[in-house]
């Protein structure tokens, strides 16, 4: 009897240890959004999971520098032709070879107008892809495209296996993806989870985490609870309000990625009076106390901004944040012919960090210079239908974290006539066009600097602040977060 008890005791002491060893290789990630499909050519959601199954020709390291991926090198042969040398001996999870044909197939299927890819715009500068030899491809662009290597580093340019896709068709491929990436697809149950296992033959080496489970937990409190109770190891989208819960926990850390989120701005419909008047725009710009909003409402989880271009972007200029100066703002309004202010509608939604509280604070600050605000807060699904046409002032988040280039940050919201732009400033349009025709990086950067300077003067939009990306993780897991919002499980370790 005593012997038995001793054995049982020994067994019970052993159990947790073996359990810990078995568990160490598994990781569970809690996400806010559920996955609908995993075909990288036709994504309608972020590429977070897909990014672990597939590879791109060009990759970004953790400092966001472009580094070789499935391509070992790339060069611009002339203004409109880029040549990529492919990595030899890389195989898809099903054994197919990754070669020039796969690259051509990947791009052609997204460009095909009949396929109606929702992300074709990300690679629409491409004219054609030609195969030079099995390990060399040339990509021809319609005009000079300095961003082509960047375009090859993100979706929809994750390389897919031609034979498998043709055999099973797009629908099955989206549910049972096969790539060259560090993780192989295992199981997908909609609204529940996606399970991946390590690709031991991965060309960068075997990953240290054996199995990853991506769980969809839409509610923020439930997501944090799942982390604090150890049901998941890492979560995305931590709501600002309950972030302190994570900070207070002995088992979890808050991961705050500076410059990892969207830049929030006020769009101004310039076709409407009085926003056509530059002095009015300047006055509104000065009337906002960004620092106080960031400190008091956003609890420091954002950084005030003077430009729409992200700090990590190519072409970024460290434009100082517009100083809060209600007196000068009032004087400018008087100069513009509004000594007693005016009334205007400001629209906002529920999508960004504490956006309605911020909109309320701004309404008050506008009130201080005599601008009476009619505040309207709409549900996102309705909001997207009205913004950016209605406004006339509306709050929106915009980001360039996917390309890390100033082009993505400004072109679509500054250029006259673009779907999301409500500005119309001819001098700015000229510079924006110029920026798209130059390949030379130094000259491009100079043009972007000019654009940002002109934006300070002309105020096509009112930049407010850039949100941090907020993650939370178990202490046993290494994860620092990345400005491009990816979660590369390959780089994560668990003790």
């Amino acid at each position: 009897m005593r012997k038995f008890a001793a054995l049982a005791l020994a067994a019970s002491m052993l159990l947790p240890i073996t359990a810990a060893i078995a568990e160490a290789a598994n990781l569970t990630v809690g996400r806010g959004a559920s996955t609908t499909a995993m075909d990288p050519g036709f994504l309608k959601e972020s590429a977070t999971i897909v990014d672990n199954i597939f590879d791109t020709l060009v990759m970004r390291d953790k400092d966001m520098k472009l580094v070789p991926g499935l391509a070992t090198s790339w060069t611009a042969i002339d203004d409109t032709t880029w040549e990529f040398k492919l990595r030899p001996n890389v195989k898809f999870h099903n054994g197919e070879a990754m070669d020039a044909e796969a690259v051509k197939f990947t791009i052609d299927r997204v460009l095909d107008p009949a396929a109606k890819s929702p992300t074709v715009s990300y690679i629409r500068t491409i004219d054609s892809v030609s195969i030079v030899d099995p390990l060399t491809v040339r990509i021809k662009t319609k005009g000079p495209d300095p961003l082509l290597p960047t375009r090859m580093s993100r979706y929809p340019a994750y390389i897919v296996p031609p034979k498998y896709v043709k055999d099973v068709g797009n629908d099955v491929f989206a549910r049972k993806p096969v790539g060259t990436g560090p993780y192989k697809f295992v199981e997908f149950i909609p609204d529940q989870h996606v399970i991946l296992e390590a690709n031991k033959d991965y060309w960068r080496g075997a990953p240290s985490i054996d199995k990853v489970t991506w769980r969809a937990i839409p509610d923020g409190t439930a997501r944090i609870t799942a982390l604090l109770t150890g049901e998941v190891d890492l979560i995305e989208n931590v709501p600002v309000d309950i972030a302190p819960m994570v900070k207070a926990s002995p088992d979890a850390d808050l991961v705050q990625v500076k410059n990892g989120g969207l830049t929030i701005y006020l769009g101004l419909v310039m076709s409407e009076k009085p926003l056509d008047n530059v002095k009015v725009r300047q006055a509104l710009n000065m009337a906002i106390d960004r620092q106080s909003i960031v400190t008091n409402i956003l609890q420091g989880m954002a950084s005030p901004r003077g430009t729409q271009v992200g700090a990590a972007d190519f072409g970024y200029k460290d434009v100082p944040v517009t100083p809060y100066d209600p007196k000068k703002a009032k004087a400018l309004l008087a100069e513009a012919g509004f000594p007693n202010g005016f009334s205007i509608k400001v629209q906002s939604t529920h999508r960004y960090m504490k956006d309605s509280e911020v909109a309320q604070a701004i309404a008050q600050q506008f009130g201080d210079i005599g601008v009476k605000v009619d505040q309207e807060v709409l549900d996102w699904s309705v909001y997207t239908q009205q913004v950016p046409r209605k406004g006339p002032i509306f709050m929106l988040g915009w980001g360039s974290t996917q390309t890390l280039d100033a082009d993505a940050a400004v072109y679509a919201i500054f250029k006259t006539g673009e779907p999301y732009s409500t500005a119309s400033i001819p001098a700015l349009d000229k510079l924006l066009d110029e920026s798209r025709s130059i390949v030379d990086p130094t000259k491009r950067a100079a043009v972007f600097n000019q654009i940002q300077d002109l934006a300070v003067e002309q105020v096509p939009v009112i930049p407010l602040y850039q949100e941090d990306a907020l993650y939370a993780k178990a202490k046993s897991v290494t994860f620092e977060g990345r400005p491009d919002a990816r979660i590369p499980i390959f780089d994560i370790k668990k003790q």
Partner: protein
Amino acid sequence: MKTLSFITGRALQGLVVMFGVSAIVFFALFLTGDPAAMMMSPDASRAELEAFRQAMGFNDPIWVQYGRFLASALTGELGTSLRFQRPALGLLIERLPATALLAMTALLWSSLLGFVLGTIAAIRKNSAIDFAIRIISLLGQAIPVFWLALLLIIFFSLKLRWLPSSGIGSAAHLIMPSIALGAYYLSAITRLVRASLIEVLGENYIRTARAKGISSWRIIVHHALRNALIPVITVQGMYFASLLGGALVTEIIFAWPGIGRLAVEAIQNRDFPVVQAVVLFAAAVFVIVNFLVDLAYVWLNPRIRL
């Protein structure tokens, strides 16, 4: 004969309701704007938006689109989800078992407990225990589901670590969502059973039964409860029908993979066909269950059969 015309009448009413719902569902969604702008990536050009709109048929006159919608709905074809690129009906059917499981569990425990509490309260009318039960049932209907759900998560998952905070899989996963969802029905059923039983207990035939010296236990079980049940069953039919349409808040908070969550995410993403499918499905379930309840009524209550 009268029974037959009663049943056909109810069936026809159901059809009219379904037709009305389909019209409302279709037109209401289009009132809010352009789905193409939402489905395409934000930096899509105008030409791309236009091509997409054309391809999806969003440019046709709205009544043409409605005709197309109705014709295919009649053949069981409810369109393809814009977000999943799969038939909307398939997505719905996939999630039905999870929703049905949650609905049945919530309704089962709340009915049983509500029945017991309601009976006790009715028998001990105006006593302290009746008062306590009435307070509980008032609270159950007054507390918002999302608040109760979060309290349950914080208490049972975070503090006590007894139950998994969200998701589906084991019986333990079912406990908190069904409590959160059932609390409202517990209150409703308790109050209904109490009121209905008090009324029946005041009837002449009960007094006669008492005068004949039948034990009060027998009176309650065999005579009173049976009659008090009729309104309760009607109401439960309604509850069950509405629950099968998905529990929006509960399913979102507990990450329960059911129809309610599908609906909420479809609304957020302006996934027209899925929203339409869910609403039509919920309406159809409601109409069918209502019809079955009417049939049960005929069977339970001979007075209707006259």
